[in-house]
């Protein structure tokens, strides 16, 4: 309570203070801030800015096309402008691109929705006080602890023709061949692996919710379902949104799980990163960089939309809530004092 009330106050104080002082001081503070931040910005420019720009530059070049009379590859880079980009959307390559694009989007939508539902359920279970809770918490986290390539192999055994999945289902589904079952296999393995991540972040969010809110709700006669949708979900939303955003960014660049579980060059599970990898492994670095840049823009767009549509909302709501909350509380306090 104290934090919510003091935060805006501190804000106004901080905003008000420099206004009272001289202009030179403002500039001095700003210069100091810039100075203190510059190492961070330099590192960011080096490890993020440079690779992005270098990748974009690479995507404008092509090399190693054609052979000379002796059968040797013609050497040297050639500036091709946006040719690598237009090639992505043309002819045979366009089919492969849109297939990979729709696979990537399909995996993102299905796995994130399923992971969110299952992850929240896991968090609610882990939150409960019961005997053996520590054991349940630990075991739920196991899939997240296993490296993706290993869990890919694990699921490959489960999904092979005479594997556990078919034994349990009493079916003969060819999961690891190129086809729709392969998509399903990837979704299942991915959800198994990453639901604990959402569960973990949501659990952290749940533990921030004060117990007395639930007590009050119970006194007012709210059932468990009402409590979940009226109290738990709104209060855990900031943590949940961060978890979902992380997962979305992660699954958009998914590579290792489908590559190990089903294999590369399989239409039904080929993602955008896999096309970029294929181009690079066949020495077309320019084209690979173009695919990577397209994927980068796609990821950036999704992240921007997510933050803009939902993220901006969180802050707005939170501010509104504190503003609304205060008079109510004081009113209740007055009532209590009167009683």
């Amino acid at each position, binding site marked *: 309570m104290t934090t919510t009330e003091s935060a805006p106050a501190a804000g106004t104080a901080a905003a008000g203070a420099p206004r009272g002082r001289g202009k030179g001081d403002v500039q001095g503070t700003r210069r100091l801030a810039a100075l203190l931040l510059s190492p961070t910005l330099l590192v960011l420019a080096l490890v993020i800015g440079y690779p992005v720009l270098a990748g974009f530059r690479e995507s404008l070049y092509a090399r190693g096309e*054609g*052979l000379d009379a*002796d059968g*040797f590859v013609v050497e040297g880079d050639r500036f091709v402008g946006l040719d690598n980009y237009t090639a992505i959307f043309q002819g045979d390559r366009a089919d492969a691109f849109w297939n990979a694009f729709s696979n990537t989007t399909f995996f993102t939508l299905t796995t994130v929705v399923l992971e969110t539902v299952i992850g929240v359920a896991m968090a609610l279970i882990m939150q409960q006080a019961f005997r053996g809770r520590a054991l349940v918490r630990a075991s739920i986290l196991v899939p997240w602890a296993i490296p993706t390539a290993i869990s890919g192999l694990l699921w490959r055994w489960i999904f092979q*023709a*005479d594997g556990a999945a078919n034994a349990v289902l009493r079916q003969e589904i*060819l999961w690891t061949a*190129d086809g729709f079952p392969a998509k399903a296999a990837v979704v299942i393995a991915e959800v198994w692996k990453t639901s604990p991540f959402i569960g973990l972040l949501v659990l952290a969010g749940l533990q921030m919710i004060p117990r007395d809110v639930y007590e009050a709700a119970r006194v007012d006669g709210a059932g468990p379902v009402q409590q979940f949708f009226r109290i738990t979900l709104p209060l855990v939303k900031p943590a949940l949104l961060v978890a979902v955003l992380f997962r979305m960014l992660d699954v958009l660049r998914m590579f290792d799980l489908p590559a190990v579980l089903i294999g590369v*060059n399989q239409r039904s599970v080929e993602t955008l990163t896999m096309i970029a990898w294929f181009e690079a*492994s066949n020495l077309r670095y320019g084209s690979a960089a173009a695919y990577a840049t397209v994927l980068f823009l796609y990821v950036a767009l999704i992240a921007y939309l997510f933050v803009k549509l939902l993220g901006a909302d969180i802050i707005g709501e939170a501010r509104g809530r504190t503003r609304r909350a205060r008079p109510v509380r004081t009113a209740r306090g007055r009532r209590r004092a009167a009683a």
Partner: protein
Amino acid sequence: MRRTPLIGGTVVCAALALSLSACGGDDDGGSKGGAGAASLQGRGPITFVTGKDRSGYLQKQLDGWNAEHPKEQVRVIELPDEPNDQRQQMIQNATTKSDAYAVLNLDVVWTAEFAANRWLAQLPKDQIDLSKMLPATITTGQYRDKLYAVPSTSDAGMLYFRRDLLEKAGITGPPKTYTEMWDDCAKVKKLPEAKDADCFFTEVNKTESMTISAVEAIESAGGSIIGPDGRPTLNTPQAKQGVEFLVAAKKDHMPKEAVTLDTEGGRRSFQSGKLIFQRQWPYQYGLADSGDGSSKVAGRFAVAPLPGPNGPGVANLGGHNLAISAFAKNKATSLDFIRYLTGEQAQRANLLATSQAPTVAALYDDPEMVKKFPYLPVLKQAIAGARPRPVAVKYGDVTAAVQGEMYDAVTGKKPVDQALADLQSKLQPLTAQ
């Protein structure tokens, strides 16, 4: 003792190269990047870059060399197990022109790509004794008639069959044609113990193995994927006949889960007695014949050359070659080392220790070897008639296209004609020169 004449040879070569720019290689004047055969100079420590050595025997062979050549020690650099990763690392090393790698252990299908990119030093044919080697293996080390790599191990597909079941069904020998094979199957399947067995298996999952199966089927019918002039040749009746065999085999004679089985999956199937006929590499022989209980068919199978439509079929040629990186420093030592490792003595030792198929022809007829590896005569026959996979600089793209279209044909997603036409048009730009 061995060194002195060689140094002399190199000096002569260098002198000749200065004056005539021709020694060993006769037509490498214009090539850059040290690709000329005359430029194999420099002695000193070198590195040997290879995939993971599972047998643990390689180091012993290197110890033998190192003891004899204290000033020209060889250090082994082991790359990952996966061929694609090995290729990636070697390419990375080559594109940065690093001299960290000297002798490269290359898969036979990489020769064209590596040579065309000037990543390999051209080798002097007259300084390497190729006369003892199986002729088919030598072609895999060549690009445009110039030698870039020396064959060190070979490999070819063979037909594994259940000798016990065939005998019981009253069949005298292994089938030579597809029709014979299907007829034998029908007879064997009448036996109560073979009721649930599947007739045949060759790999048809969408991996490199699919390309190998396609090469074998199409070449057995007398066709080819890429012709001798480097152009795709899928618009022929032979190519169609080959692919139709694969489609029919998958539909009527293979296990239902065939498209999900890889090489090891096929081996498990055969070892558990579920297959009557199987196309497989030689490495399976020892494992399937082991008496430790892991194989149900130990002592009950034999190998034969692959069948074809009208007589013996054509196997695919696998194996590894040794080459010298164009950016290596001590190329003269590297050449000596290649000669050591591909020599008869080293190959004999390697065969005994690792059962990897040698490239020296005499070893296949050596009674001592045949006693230990009874499949050697069949394998020699298979390698002699074997054909390489498509030779293409853009091999990665070529094999991906072959895998995609063949998979669609075999799984019935596309009619054979359509798949072949599509593949032809996909390969045309990839092989344009």
